[in-house]
C-alpha cells in the first residue's frame, strides 16, 4: 500500500538520514510532539490496520535496539536475535500476526542509525555467534525503497566475524544492495508460498517468480540466501503446489548458497481470526482444521502438519540432501517424526543454525 501520510516526531533532527527518507516518501511531513496523535489518527479510521499501512511515523526507538526473539512456550525456538529497526508493513498479508500484535498497529521507522551502530558494535564485540534479523516486526526490505538502513546494515556487518545479518522479505527490493561489499555476512531471505496463496492471501507482495528471480540476482552477486516456508497453508492440493515451489527454488538457486530453509505451518493468536474475517472477507485461511495449541495459539491438527512437513522435507532433500531444514516453533513429536531427531537441549537448534551460518558466511568457527 502506498504511504499517504507522514508523521515525524518533532524531537527527531532533520539530518541526511531523515531528509533522504522524506525525499523518498515524497510527502510533506507533519511534525508532532505527541505519539497519541498518530494513534488517534489510525484508530479513528474504520479500518485501523489499512490506515496504519499507509501512515508512516518516524520516531525514536525507545526500547532495546537488539533483543532476543520472544519465541513461545512448549515449542522449540531457534534463538534468533532481532534488530529493531521499525514496525509493521506496507504489504497486506491476510495471515499477518502484526495486525493483531500491535495496539494499534503503526508503521514506524526508527530514526537514528547511530543507535543501530552502537547496538551492533556491542554484538560484534561478543565471543558468540549471532544470527540477527530485522524481519520479525516488519518486512526487512520494504524499507529499501525509503531509507538507507538496509544498505547501512549490509555494510556494517561486512567486516566482522561473529554475526550474520538476515534480511527477510516478500519484496524484490534489492537493487541498492546488489553492488555493495557484503563480504558474505548478509543473508537475503525470502518468505515463500505457493502462487495460489500469494495471489489470494499476500496482497501487494511480489509474485513467487519475481521473488525467486530476485534471489537469483542476489546469488549472482555473491549473497547467501535463505528461504522461509512460513506460513505453510494446508488446502486441497497444497502438497503438490509446495513441491512445485521447491522445484522452482532449485531451478533458480544453487543449493550450496542456501544457508537454511525454515518450515512453519500457519498458526495464529485466536484474536487474529476476527481481524482476518473483517478485513479479508474472501479468505478462508482460518477455517482449516485448527486446534488450540499448548501455547494458546491456533495450530493445524498435528497429524496434518506432520504429513505436509514430511512431504516438503523429502522433496527438499531430493534436490539438496545436505541443506539445513528446520522448523520454526514445532514440538518434539513433529521433529522426531519428520526429521528423525529432536534438538532437545536448550540452544541445540540455535547451535545447528549457527554452524550453518559459520560455514556459509565465513564466521569465526572458534566461537561455536
Amino acid at each position: 500500500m502506498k504511504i499517504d501520510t507522514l508523521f515525524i516526531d518533532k524531537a527527531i533532527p532533520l539530518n541526511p538520514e531523515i531528509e533522504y527518507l522524506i525525499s523518498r516518501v515524497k510527502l510533506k511531513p507533519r511534525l508532532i510532539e505527541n505519539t497519541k496523535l498518530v494513534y488517534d489518527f489510525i484508530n479513528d479510521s474504520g479500518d485501523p490496520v489499512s490506515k496504519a499501512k499507509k501512515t508512516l511515523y518516524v520516531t525514536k526507538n525507545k526500547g532495546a535496539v537488539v533483543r532476543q526473539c520472544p519465541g513461545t512456550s512448549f515449542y522449540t525456538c531457534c534463538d534468533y536475535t532481532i534488530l529493531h529497526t521499525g514496525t509493521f508493513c506496507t504489504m497486506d498479508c491476510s495471515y499477518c500476526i502484526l495486525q493483531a500484535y500491535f495496539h494499534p498497529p503503526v508503521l514506524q521507522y526508527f530514526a537514528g542509525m547511530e543507535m543501530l551502530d552502537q547496538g551492533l558494535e556491542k554484538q560484534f564485540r561478543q565471543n558468540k555467534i549471532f544470527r540477527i534479523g530485522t524481519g520479525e516486526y516488519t518486512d526487512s526490505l520494504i524499507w529499501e525503497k525509503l531509507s538507507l538502513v538496509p544498505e547501512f546494515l549490509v555494510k556494517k556487518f561486512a567486516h566482522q566475524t561473529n554475526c550474520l545479518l538476515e534480511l527477510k522479505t516478500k519484496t524484490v527490493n534489492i537493487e541498492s544492495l546488489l553492488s555493495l561489499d557484503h563480504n558474505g555476512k548478509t543473508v537475503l531471505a525470502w518468505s515463500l508460498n505457493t502462487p495460489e496463496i500469494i495471489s489470494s492471501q499476500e496482497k501487494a507482495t511480489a509474485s513467487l517468480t519475481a521473488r525467486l528471480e530476485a534471489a537469483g540476482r542476489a546469488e549472482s552477486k555473491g549473497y547467501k540466501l535463505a528461504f522461509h516456508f512460513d506460513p505453510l497453508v494446508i488446502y486441497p492440493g497444497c502438497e503438490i503446489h509446495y513441491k512445485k515451489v521447491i522445484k522452482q527454488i532449485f531451478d533458480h538457486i544453487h543449493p550450496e548458497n542456501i544457508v537454511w530453509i525454515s518450515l512453519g505451518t500457519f498458526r495464529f493468536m485466536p484474536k487474529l481470526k476476527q481481524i482476518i474475517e473483517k478485513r479479508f472477507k474472501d479468505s478462508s485461511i482460518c477455517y482449516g482444521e485448527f486446534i488450540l495449541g499448548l501455547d494458546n495459539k491456533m495450530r493445524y491438527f498435528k497429524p496434518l502438519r506432520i504429513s505436509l512437513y514430511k512431504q516438503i522435507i523429502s522433496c527438499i532433500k531430493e534436490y539438496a540432501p545436505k541443506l539445513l531444514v528446520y522448523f520454526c516453533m514445532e514440538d518434539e513429536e513433529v521433529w522426531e517424526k519428520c526429521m528423525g531427531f529432536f534438538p532437545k537441549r536448550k540452544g541445540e537448534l540455535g547451535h545447528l543454525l549457527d554452524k550453518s551460518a559459520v560455514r556459509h558466511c565465513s564466521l569465526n568457527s572458534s566461537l561455536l
Partner: protein
Amino acid sequence: MSNPLHEIKIADIDLADQRYKISLSEYDISFLALSIKETGLISPPIVRPLENKVIIVSGFNRIRAYLVNNETKIPVYKTKPDIDEYQCLLTAITQLSFKRPLTHAELILSIKRLNKFLNEKQIRDKSPAIFNMELNLRFIEDLLNIGALPDPAPALIHNGNLSFKSAKKISLFEKDTIDVFLNIFSKIKASNNKQLEIILHIMEISAREGIKPKDLYSKKIIKDILFNENKDPWLKTRDLRTCLFEQRFPALSKTRKTVQKKITGLKLNKKIKFMPPENFESRDFNISFTAKTHDEFTANIRNLVDALENDSLKEIF
C-alpha cells in the same frame, strides 16, 4: 395522560386487533381471573375508541381474565378518540415495562414499532422514560436488526429456540442464510452456546468448501437429522452438532474415533479412565482409577496389567 374511567361491554372490544400488544407471554390466565374475582380489578385496562368499537392499548390479559369469569362488562380507561398511534404505543410499552422488565422478544417488538416514530438516537434518549432503563445506541441497532428478521424469528426468540446472541449473529447474514438458520432452529432445541457453535460451524464449513450455507443445509446427511420426526429436538441438536463437527474437523474426528475404539479394545473396567490428550497436540495420555477397597485397587491394577498385552495399547502410542 389522564383518561376517564368507563364501564364498557366486553362485546364492544375488538379482541382481534392486537396492534398494541407488547407482552408475548400467553400464560394460564386462570389465576388472574381468580384474583380479580377475589379482590376486584386493581388496575383497569386502557382502550382506545376506534370507529364504533374500542381496541385494547394495555390490559390484554385482564380482559381475557374477565372473559374467563364470564363477565360481560369491564371498567376501562378510555383514551380520547383523537389520540395518535405514537401515544397509544408509548402507553402500551410503558404500562408493561414499568410493571416488569421486558423480555428480549418484547424489546425487539417495541423498538421495531417505536422506530416508525423515533430514530435510534431519540429512542436512546427517551429509553429511561419508556423502558424503565437506559438503552445504548448499539443495543438499539442490534434490536432493530434482529427485529428485521423474518418469521418465524420472533416466535423462536420468544420461545427460547433462538437466543439473542444467535439472532444478532444471523441478522447480519444474507436472506437465504438467515432462512437456513431459522429453519434449523425451528427444528432443534439448543442452548445459546450450542446455537452459536452450530452457526459458526455451518458458516466455516461453507466458507472452506466454497459453498453457500443453503447448499450445506440441503445435504442429505443434514436433512436426515433435522427432518427425523422420531427424534426429539434435543437429540437432533446432539446429532447435528456431531455431524457438523465431523465435517468441520474431519481428521481430528477420525483420529478421536480411532483412538477411542482402541481404548475400548483394551477392555478396561469402568472405574479406570484412560484419556487421550486434548486434540492430540500434546503426547500425554492420562490414566486414572478409583478404588474403594484394596480388592478394587488390585482388580484395577490387574486389569491394567492385562491391557499391557493388548496390541491396541501399543497402537495408541
